[in-house]
């Protein structure tokens, strides 16, 4: 038996209630995160990977709402009232998103590295101000102590001459430094779980390599758990130990990184891996592309969300019933009728 997870997401559903209809951005997502593990959430646009991350932090904004499922988190530092606890877990999905309990978890226990470091700092407040604020929110330290902690964090993430940057505004820093500063802010209170939401999408490859290296070493040193959200399969392969593949709000497959990349089970994962050009594919050849395009979230196909583009589509089954996520081999799970026969009846 493996060690207990610190986070266990079960059948999470987050819907957006728009005038035009309901968008089921996250529709039944389940996975677990263990201490010191990097879980990669990977998928194309509209698959709900970012919304999953925001749902865990409970910062989904209206008209979006977590409508179902459980987000069981095992607090590492914060003491939460017993009433809300069941065998050491708190169900974040049941907490008031603006309430005190949720706020005491955010930043202190679970922290966020956002996608756009430039826009994620207030442009009229110094980096130092925003760092000190993050520190003092969850730690009983005075201004001066907080400043020292902040400088320490900046140093840890490799910001040169932190005393100087402390008084700088975010737009005075270069892209790479800004990214480091935002990581310093996420690490301000030594969180147990880090949610990195496409942290390297907006930056160049060489800077991306620096940031990935930094994250990897920080994670090793602190034995932090990371949920790494990205659309880039290359990045996932480089950082994750466990991978969750999403498509249209559902988990189609999940498993240890080696299994996902070397013996993918779900037709979507297989097709996706084949269709990406890499430095190792033969040049100027036709790629085995996935046909069609991602359906608009308003028009989710019935049954398996991938069936209109699937090469192994079985008429009468895949378009009628929705497959569920079931174990395939070892720690690998997939959601496909090819692997698990459809339940009879109906």
């Amino acid at each position, binding site marked *: 038996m493996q060690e207990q997870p610190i986070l266990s997401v079960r059948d999470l559903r987050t819907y957006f209630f728009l005038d035009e209809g309901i968008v089921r951005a996250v529709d039944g997502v389940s996975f677990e995160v263990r201490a010191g593990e990097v879980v990669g959430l990977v998928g*194309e*646009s509209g698959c709900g990977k970012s919304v999953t991350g925001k749902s865990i932090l409970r910062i989904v904004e209206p008209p979006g709402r977590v409508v179902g499922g459980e987000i069981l988190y095992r607090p590492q530092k914060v003491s939460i009232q017993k009433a809300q606890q069941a065998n050491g877990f708190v169900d974040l999905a049941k907490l008031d998103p603006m309430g005190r309990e949720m706020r005491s978890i955010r930043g202190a226990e679970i922290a966020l590295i956002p996608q756009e470091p430039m826009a994620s700092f207030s442009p009229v407040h110094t980096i130092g101000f925003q760092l000190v604020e993050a520190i003092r929110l969850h730690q009983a330290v005075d201004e001066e102590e907080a400043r020292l902690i902040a400088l320490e964090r900046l140093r840890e993430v490799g910001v040169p001459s932190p005393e100087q940057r402390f008084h700088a505004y975010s737009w005075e820093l*270069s892209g790479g430094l800004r990214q480091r500063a935002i990581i310093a802010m996420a690490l301000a209170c030594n969180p147990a779980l880090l949610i990195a939401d496409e942290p390297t999408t907006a930056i160049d*490859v060489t800077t991306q390599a620096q940031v990935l290296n930094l994250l990897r070493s920080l994670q090793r040193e602190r034995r932090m758990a990371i949920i790494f959200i990205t659309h880039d399969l290359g990045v996932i*392969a480089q950082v994750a130990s466990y991978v969750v593949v999403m498509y249209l709000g559902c988990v189609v497959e999940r498993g240890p*990184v080696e299994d996902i990349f070397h013996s993918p089970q779900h037709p979507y994962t297989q097709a996706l891996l084949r269709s*990406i050009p890499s430095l190792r594919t033969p040049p100027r050849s036709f790629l085995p592309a996935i*046909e069609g395009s991602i359906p*608009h979230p308003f028009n989710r196909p019935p049954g398996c969300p991938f069936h209109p*583009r699937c090469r192994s589509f079985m008429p009468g089954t895949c378009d009628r019933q929705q497959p569920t996520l079931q174990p395939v081999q070892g720690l690998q799970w997939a959601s496909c009728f090819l692997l698990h026969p459809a339940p009879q009846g109906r």
Partner: protein
Amino acid sequence: MPAGTMAQDEKPLLEVRSLKKYFPLRKGFFRRLIGQIRAVDDVSFAIYEGETLGLVGESGCGKTTTARCILRAIDPTAGQILFRTAAGDVVDVATLSEDELRPLRREMQMIFQDPYASLNPRMNLLDIVSEPLIVIEGIKSREERVQRVAQMLEMVGLRPEYMLRYPHAFSGGQRQRIVIARALVLHPRLVVADEPVSALDVSVRAQVLNLMLRLQQELSLTYLFVSHDLSVVKHICNRVAVMYVGKLVELAPTEELFARPLHPYTEALMAAVPIPDPRIRSAMLPLEGEVPNPANPPSGCYFHPRCRYSQPLCREQAPPLQEAQPGHLAACHFAGQLSLRGVSP
């Protein structure tokens, strides 16, 4: 001519010589000139008929500016852009007036990055794709336009029945097909593709790359393919040019470049690309520092502050782009003397 084979002794379709584009930096109430951004700084290369030349580099390296200068979407500051027309004349695109350029528009076209911004939301497919036909070929009759557009749409994999739809009816990948249809409707010889797949989803990207490859074969097109994504560039190009802070640092046939890079920047760039295989986790240290500001570049070789092989000479002298090996150009004082790692196929 099958793509991939090209003879260097052939006359190039396009030759860029010492291209420069400086953007003025202005400020204040009277918009005083306070400096210049050297977006493209003395770039020279040639493209041969039927090949795909990749232009690769990080953001702000001037690759997009170079591409846009070639089509005169922006006016270059200096340099020559010699284009060999279908009639066989060589013209300098850089010096032509707007009116003189118009006949050349038939021969060189562009594919844009953002399929949302590059289609006019007020026009339907018929109007969008037939606009070049009206303007350049002077086709007035609607039937002829409909026929030509239908043919074109079919060629890029869209149903001709969709001709009366507006761009808002299409997804990103389909919009990119429309953009390609518009660029190819005049049967140009040179197509400048500016990051044509970077705004697309992974699963759609392959479709568009396949389409571009197929159209190149069918219409014997020549591509200048601009991208920041080395994997894509490696996949689609015959030759690749690497840019860094407005300058070309290396230019070589694709496989040669990836197997045996001669410039330390190329090596670092390749090493930074994450490989989608968890068994090959790159162990090497990433490149330190960041891309310098093109308004205020370092002395000598622009790459020397980040280069692990840097010597005192590099700080003082800017290395010229020279042929280090046959067909392989590099702008490094020590090209060929360093043992750099490429990507093994």
